[in-house]
């Protein structure tokens, strides 16, 4: 009998025990294991290093610096086109349909918020190694400058040609230099001026220059990369003397190099080597985060019948093919940088610069800035300053390194010179970083569409509203202080 009650007692106790042990305060305290609370994330120098790695990972994402920045402008301008048989991506770009563009607003502001977080928290870290703190601050400033510069050259009117334009005030973008505060921050900022924006970019670049060492590692911002970026920014601002100064400083920097590439194999080292032979700034993947078919240049712009690799949707326009052929005939290795194949009954030309060079399908590292760009900048700036001899010297040096030392530049004016320079640049930079689109835009030039064809799209005047990209409606509808660009 007693035994019986003992078992009952045991059950009662067991029940109570379960109840008591599980009602402790800690029972409802559950935290994720893949995440860390935001107030703790950036309180150590390792945390900041991680945040910076996370930021670079996004910086090189397909939707930003891989597929989008390389191809969108090529399609919007007169360089590239979409094949007739295609998978439906970027099909509105060649005809400059409203809404076709880079579409990086959301992504870039997310990344800017990270850079802001790093800069906001880094000074509060106790007992941190000064060298690392400076290094990371330099990186964050340089990244933020690059991203604001991208926003400005896509979503705002060109610095040098703010007027005349369809209508409305010339506006910059929204400038945020502190991390978003969260649920209690309910009023949002308006767009600042273009001038303010370029000043912010310059301030960040100069700050970065003060922090960064003269490292030779091109997979992140170095002193040379910041010098190069300054040259590019001043070029867009039409500040020719500073543009020339910084371009020359980048050329003279011990970590940069211009190689003799007068044949296909040598020229290919610019694109296939890791890092590329002339890379001042490059973004590099590992096996773990290499890009996929939908978000890489190669996925969009190569076509391989045997392996089934690549959509083969982005193709070269006839104009560009003719240009490459004529330069190729003169010895420029870019003449060999494309190949032809029949796709859906159409003879198409595909680029070779991004062609799964790193050994996996669609894996190519991104050449963000190559030394030759500095020669173009220096040449253009000197021409604009009236020193044609100096300008021709830079351009000829570049031609000498591309097997075109025998092709002279015979021009009488800066204007003519810049025409030649722009043609050289089209050949050197096709399918890279949308240089063509941004160059036409910053100089206030109309966008022709090459050989007239039914599907090629009609030319776009430089002051057409579509030259300034639409700000996403998600911004406009949630931020009553943000004004849409005119025309949309």
């Amino acid at each position, binding site marked *: 009998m007693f035994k019986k009650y003992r078992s009952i007692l045991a059950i009662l106790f067991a029940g109570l025990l379960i*109840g008591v042990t599980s009602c402790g305060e800690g029972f409802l305290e559950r935290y994720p294991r893949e*995440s860390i609370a935001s107030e703790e994330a950036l309180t150590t120098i390792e945390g900041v290093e991680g945040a910076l790695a996370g930021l670079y*990972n996004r910086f090189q994402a397909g939707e930003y610096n891989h597929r989008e920045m390389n191809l969108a402008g090529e399609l919007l301008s007169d360089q590239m086109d979409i094949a007739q048989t295609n998978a439906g991506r970027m099909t509105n770009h060649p005809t400059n349909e409203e809404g076709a563009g880079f579409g990086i607003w959301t992504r870039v502001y997310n990344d800017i918020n990270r850079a802001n977080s790093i800069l906001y928290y880094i000074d509060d870290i106790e007992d941190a190694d000064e060298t690392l703190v400076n290094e990371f601050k330099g990186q964050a400033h340089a990244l933020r400058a690059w991203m604001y510069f991208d926003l400005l050259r896509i979503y705002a009117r060109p610095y040098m040609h703010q007027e005349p334009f369809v209508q409305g005030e010339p506006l910059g973008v929204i400038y945020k230099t502190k991390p978003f505060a969260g649920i209690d921050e309910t009023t*949002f900022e308006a767009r600042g001026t273009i001038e303010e924006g370029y000043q912010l970019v310059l301030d960040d670049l100069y700050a970065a220059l003060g922090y960064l060492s003269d490292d030779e590692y091109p997979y992140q911002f170095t002193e040379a990369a910041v010098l190069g970026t300054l040259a590019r920014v001043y070029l867009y601002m039409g500040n020719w003397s500073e543009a020339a100064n910084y371009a020359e400083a980048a050329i003279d920097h011990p970590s940069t190099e211009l190689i003799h590439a007068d044949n296909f194999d040598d020229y290919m080292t610019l694109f296939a080597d890791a890092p590329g032979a002339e890379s001042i700034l490059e973004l590099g993947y590992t096996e773990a985060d290499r890009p996929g078919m939908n978000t890489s240049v190669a996925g969009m712009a190569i076509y391989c019948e045997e392996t089934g690799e690549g959509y083969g949707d982005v193709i070269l326009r006839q104009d560009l093919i003719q240009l490459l052929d004529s330069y190729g005939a003169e010895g420029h290795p870019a003449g060999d940088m494309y190949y032809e194949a029949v796709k859906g009954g159409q003879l198409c030309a595909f680029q070779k610069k991004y062609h799964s060079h790193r050994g*996996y399908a669609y894996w190519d590292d991104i050449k963000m800035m190559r030394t030759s760009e500095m020669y173009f900048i220096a040449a253009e700036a000197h021409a604009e300053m009236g020193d044609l001899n100096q300008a021709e010297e830079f351009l000829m040096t570049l031609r000498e390194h591309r097997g075109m030392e025998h092709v002279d530049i015979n021009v009488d004016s800066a204007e003519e010179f810049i025409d030649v320079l722009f043609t050289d640049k089209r050949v050197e930079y096709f399918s890279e970083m949308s240089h063509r689109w941004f160059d036409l835009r910053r100089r206030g030039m109309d966008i022709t569409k090459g050989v007239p064809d039914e599907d090629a799209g009609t030319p776009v005047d430089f002051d057409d509203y579509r030259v300034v990209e639409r700000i996403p409606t998600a911004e406009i509808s949630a931020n009553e202080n943000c004004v849409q660009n005119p025309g949309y």
Partner: protein
Amino acid sequence: MRKKLLISFLLLLAVSFTTAIAQITVTGTVISADDEEPIPGVSISIRGTTTGTVTDVEGNYSIEVPDEEAILEFSFVGKQREEIVVGEQRTIDVELESDVVGLDEVVVTGYGVQRRRDLTGSVSSVRSESIEGMPVESIQRAIQGRAAGVQVTAGSGVPGGDVSVIVRGMGSFSANRPIWIVDGVEVQTGGLGMRSESESILASLDFEDIESIDVLKDAAATAIYGARGANGVIVISTRRGEAADDTDFTFDIRRGYTEPIRTMPVMSGPQWAQWDYERYANRYGADHSTTQSRIQTGVDRGWYELGADGVPDFTTSPNYDWQDEAYRQGNVMEARLTARGGDERTRFYTSLSHNMTEGHVIAYDFSRSSFRLNLDHDATDRLSFDMQVSANLSDQNSTRLGGAWSSPVRGGGGIPPVEPIFTHQAEEAGLPVGQEFDGFYNAPRSVFGAYRAHILNSAKYDHLISRNLKTILNLSATYDITDNLMYRSTFGVDYNANDEEQWYDPRASDGHVANGVLRDYETSAYAIQTTQTLNYQNIFADVHEINTVVGYETWERIWRRTAVRGENFPNPHMNVINAAADAVWWSGNETERATVGAFGRANYSYDDRYMLTLTARYDGSSRFGSENRWGFFPAAAIGWRLSSEPFMAGVDQLDNLVVRLSYGTAGSDAAGTYAALGLWSGGTQYRGTAGIYPTQLPNAYLTWEESRTLNLALSAAGFGGRVNLDIDLFNRWTEELLLARPLPRSTGWSSITENVGRNFNHGFEMALNTVNIERENFRWSTEFNLNFIEGEILELLPGEDFFSDRRKVGQAINDRNIPMYAGVNPADGRPMYYDRDWNITYNPVYEDRHWMGPEQPTRFGGITNTFNFGNFSTSIFFQYSGGSYRYFSDARFWFHGTGDRNQLATVFEDRWQEAGDMTDAPRVVYGNVFAGNVQSPNSYASHMFERVDYLRLKDLSVSYEIPAGITQRYGIDNMRIFARGSNLVTWTDYSGTDPEFTGSDFGTYPQGRTLTFGISTNF
């Protein structure tokens, strides 16, 4: 010595205590009024107490009652309850009448049971008999159309696939699934897998082990589940053992055949060839070089031969039926063995079953093995244990799925029917053969772009295996502290493991580039629940009856997943991760959540006339910020039994008439697991440096979604128990709805989750069960349920009536704001649209959109007629649903698609051809280029929506019971043979494959029409 004395004293005390409360012994026999046979397993309890016993195999019982005022209650499934006052009797024999409509059925209400007639809350029940032998894999599919207020829609026909169950309509933007309680333990539902198109862990439960299904609907019923009850609660009890001399065995075997209800009505080869030619000719002109080069492609590819005039002759076009290759006759095979028995102290039910389903789409199959053991043991008069153990293993095999072009359903419909399927066909047609595997012919990539896929090739070499293990372990102890007070402690574990393997073979299109791709996912989720309850019931002064329960419950769940992807395999037969040259991707994570709750419920009834229920639960959840972690959920209900009032005494036909009113709240912690926390996450890197990135903004104010329900109901039963009617009217407000408030993107964030929205649903439910004819050898009964439901969003973000194209104040949840298609201009074949004022436009802008909805049906239900005549019985079940608008998402590809894919036959057959043609299908033009039109007919617009109404003959069964005289010669107690057909006929205007699918039709596996034969034996 002292110790011994003490023990003796305690023993004495204990003995006197027990004897003091049981003074009278009553014995007797219970028999069935129908056949005068004794009934074993009848439960006998003393009214107002928790004390009780059951009859033995001869129908005999013996029970000790405290005094002569005690009332004995006799109840048994399918019999009317009997109440007898003990008085001076010491032997009470009872005859139980058949209960045709279930008035005295016991309803499991969560932490307790109630008789249906005493319910104050709103509960729909499904009887196990009505779903026995249904040829479906899951419980959700089995209850479709059978329970009032419960709307079941399959997302696809995939065997073992997930099924959406919604109780009383969608009330939340985030989560609308009810919770499922099996034998007191909350079990996990939905899918665990990562890659499967559709998979449900509930499908691994053998639903034929189920004794009863009760769906708790209003707040009076669900508030006891507090923070989990807002979307309804489905309470399942499994079968239990019964005392018997001989163990009772059943053996069922079934065999079935399935075929798709319908395949996609696409163009034939000649139609496609002509369509393709016309779209080029209409775009460029017949003589244009582009058209001519297309014709040349057509001739080269064998799509047609040229006629004398140089125009393609479509009568020469081939017709290769790819869909025919994608489907096959499916098979279902099921065998079950059960045993139940035991003695008075220990009873058991055990079952073993195996189901093998070979899908009607190639390469799809499903199998399940289930085991269950339910044990009950009475340790003493007061202490008993019960245990449920079930282990279920299911395998779902398939190939490429859904939207992939190599998926049989998508590709079968989409590959142009002029392209040969097999190499021999290509050879016969004189086509160059270069790309083929094993006799499967692939069209060259230069014709069809990147989509080089062969469904048979993929079906042969690619696979996706999803294996589920579901075990539910549940141990309870019940102790009667006194005759009125009972303590019960339950410990339950629900463990689910899913193991998925997806293989893209290098010999098929999707694995070709990477030389084989293997994805492995291991996911597990286990939940531990502990429940302690105290139950008190008593009757005071004969008229005040109370029944209360208080309890405390903890629940925690840990979910884990590890995944890896490998590529580049040396040999397609070496397809495990170890053989991969490159492990290219991996992932692994664990999340935890926990809830704690204290609850109580009191039922009070006065003189069996006035009933009152008060319920409350206080719940805490780990999901919410410390500021708002706890929630309180009260509910109250009153009931008035008019039929017990003296003024109704004259109405003899009425057995029961009750009106009920309830009001209360329940909650839903539908937010993400760590939704309140601000987070930076890992899993990213740059050149080998591990990275972190911000993933979530903190919101310490985040809290429960809450639903308030007002329910007015009437229950009536009469005509000797032959008619039973339940009518419910309800209003349900869901509040504090979780909504992601959009943030300007310049903040670096897209949204923050807040509790802001409000929604209102109201509806009418009716369930009517009748026995229409009852004769000696013939019985006809009907079960009918009818539901009307409407919903409306009341509030979104503060000050705004619009949130997105799926959310607007005044519209139902998931309505759509879309461009309205207006058909085709008869003059020139251009597609037309309506503008905001319903005038014709060719270029609708955003402001021209109109709202279309609802997505969910506004009326649904089912009707079952059962006829028994002699040894034959037949049952006919119709299910219907109507009022919803479905997005036919494949229309983007199959309605004037711009690629080289096959299209719906109507695109060709109904196309506009010449001025004056009145049709909805525009002129065919390559690339959909219509001068002056921006909107293309294959862009998202209202013509991709269809109103869906359907009536379906869901189930028709005929069975014959072989006369006992014959079977008993072979030692078989009874044997039944049956045939049944499922999804036999569907009446609908819907043009997709199946009007039942929710959401979309994107390459969805169609449901099957099934014919099953079976034998059920009992020995």
